[in-house]
């Protein structure tokens, strides 16, 4: 389209200005102040980073974020895929999909309340009002304080909440990709005598691989930044701390801007591979256009 030289800039400038002010400039500034003390007055070199990699709670957060990545990403992606493929075979597909997808509309805070109630715990003498402990007492088992038993059970319980929220997202994308596979292809395989199981592994999975990769990267980015669920449900107590919640605490509770910035930079460094993957994918898409 032919335009005067100045015209495009009139359209771009407001957005470019805001992006610069809210994302580009502060990110650079954060890297800078991560080398300074708590109120950014004294240069301290890499002291804040040394703190991050030696402090026990920080190391704990790294472990927990790793646990989140290792459990959350495969769980959401595989559950999303399985549900997408299964519901494609029934008539009430759209209702089931709406149910699975619905948590996406709810805030993590709301989801936190919902699940804190599921995990509610009272001593064995009282009536259990949390559904999980009620089930346990139904089977004559002792009630468990799910969110307190450290470090594996409570972290696992928090991860389940994340899976409950995000599986719908994975399912929607994977379902669209699954429906894009030509039906004749699957029919031909069936006629040739392939079992449903074999069709899934040898045809459906390879064809959906690019989409699965996209979903998995998105989930990895999400999970590295996990904050709300932990903040609401345990606030990082009982060995459930994660990087983003730690950053918030350093910033607002301990008012140590140097350390908080260093944590943010570490978070960014963990996400940078995903940024590169994103840009590469964008370039490939542009090449196809």
């Amino acid at each position: 389209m032919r335009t005067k030289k100045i015209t495009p800039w009139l359209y771009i400038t407001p957005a470019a200005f805001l992006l610069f002010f809210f994302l580009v400039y502060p990110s650079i500034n954060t890297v800078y102040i991560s080398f300074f003390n708590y109120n950014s007055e004294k240069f301290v070199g890499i002291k804040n980073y040394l703190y991050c990699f030696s402090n026990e709670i920080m190391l704990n957060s790294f472990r927990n974020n790793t646990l989140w990545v290792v459990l959350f990403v495969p769980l959401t992606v595989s559950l999303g895929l399985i549900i997408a493929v299964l519901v494609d075979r029934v008539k009430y597909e759209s209702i089931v999909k709406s149910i699975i997808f619905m948590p996406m509309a709810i805030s993590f805070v709301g989801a936190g309340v919902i699940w804190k109630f599921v995990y509610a715990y009272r001593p064995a003498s009282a009536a259990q009002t949390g559904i999980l402990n009620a089930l346990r007492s139904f089977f004559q088992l002792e009630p468990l304080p799910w969110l307190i038993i450290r470090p594996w059970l409570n972290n696992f319980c928090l991860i389940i909440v994340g899976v409950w929220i995000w599986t719908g997202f994975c399912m929607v994308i994977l379902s669209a990709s699954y429906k894009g596979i030509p039906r004749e292809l699957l029919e031909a395989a069936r006629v040739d005598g392939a079992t449903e199981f074999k069709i899934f592994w040898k045809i459906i999975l390879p064809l959906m691989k690019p989409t699965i990769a996209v979903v998995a990267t998105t989930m990895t980015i999400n999970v590295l930044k996990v904050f709300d669920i932990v903040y609401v449900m345990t606030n990082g107590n009982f060995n459930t701390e994660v990087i983003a919640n730690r950053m918030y605490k350093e910033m607002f509770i301990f008012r140590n801007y140097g350390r908080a910035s260093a944590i943010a930079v570490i978070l960014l460094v963990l996400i940078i591979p995903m940024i590169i993957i994103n840009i590469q994918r964008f370039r490939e898409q542009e090449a196809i256009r």
Partner: protein
Amino acid sequence: MKKLISIFSGIPLHLVIITIALIWILPSVGLLITSFRSSADVATSGWWTVLQHPFNFTCYTLENYREVIIRIGIGKAFWNTLLITIPATIIPILIASFAAYAFAWMDFPGRRLLFVILVGLLVVPLQMTMIPILRVFNKLGLAGTFPGIWFAHTGYGLPLIIYLLYNFISGLPSELFDSCSIDGATPFQIFKKLVIPLSLPALASVTIFQFLWVWNDLLVALVYLGGTPDVAPLTVRISALVGSYGQDWELLTAAAFVSMILPLSLFLGLQRYFVKGILAGSVKG
């Protein structure tokens, strides 16, 4: 082989699907029922006990809602959330549609580079930006104010909104633009008369996206608004309640449900656009 298909599409399949759906919906059902029960009932029995006599309406009450909305101030928080969310949805979409149009149909030096930077910005963690912005906000007196958080959400929302709108607008047929240019229409006329009306479906998806994102946000509100009841949105108030009313499940559940009514009805009503938005390429968390 036929047998295998019939096993897969038969009863076990239905059982598996229905079990999954039940597991997914039960926690929310528990929340909804509990929010209508009296505090005495909630303390002594599980919410599932009402299912024995679901139509015994004497065991339901609206008292919890009155309590949280009026006395605990969730009504005020609902209002705050609206005041935050509506401008924080409209402003970025307005700014982004201009930018997306220019990226898609105008030629200017640095266009590609700028767009690659934009794609990179999609996943920059917000934590990277908060301390410097908070300092500037403190200097300008924007911390703890609605305009401050409107701008913050605008800045944070722009990459994804521009990206999604660009994908849609660049897909419009180029003949349309050529014929309009020949007819002597200015870029702004084309934008107003052609691009905006044709992009309505995409605009609807990004509106729902941004609305839900802002409505459900906790971190940005905590950092730039803080917890004062004057300005605090629902998410901030409710997460504070979880600390102070930890065992009063009838109140917590009622408050949580108040925060979900609007996004849930939006979602159920406009699910189609929401799904389209997600499929158009969402990488923001």
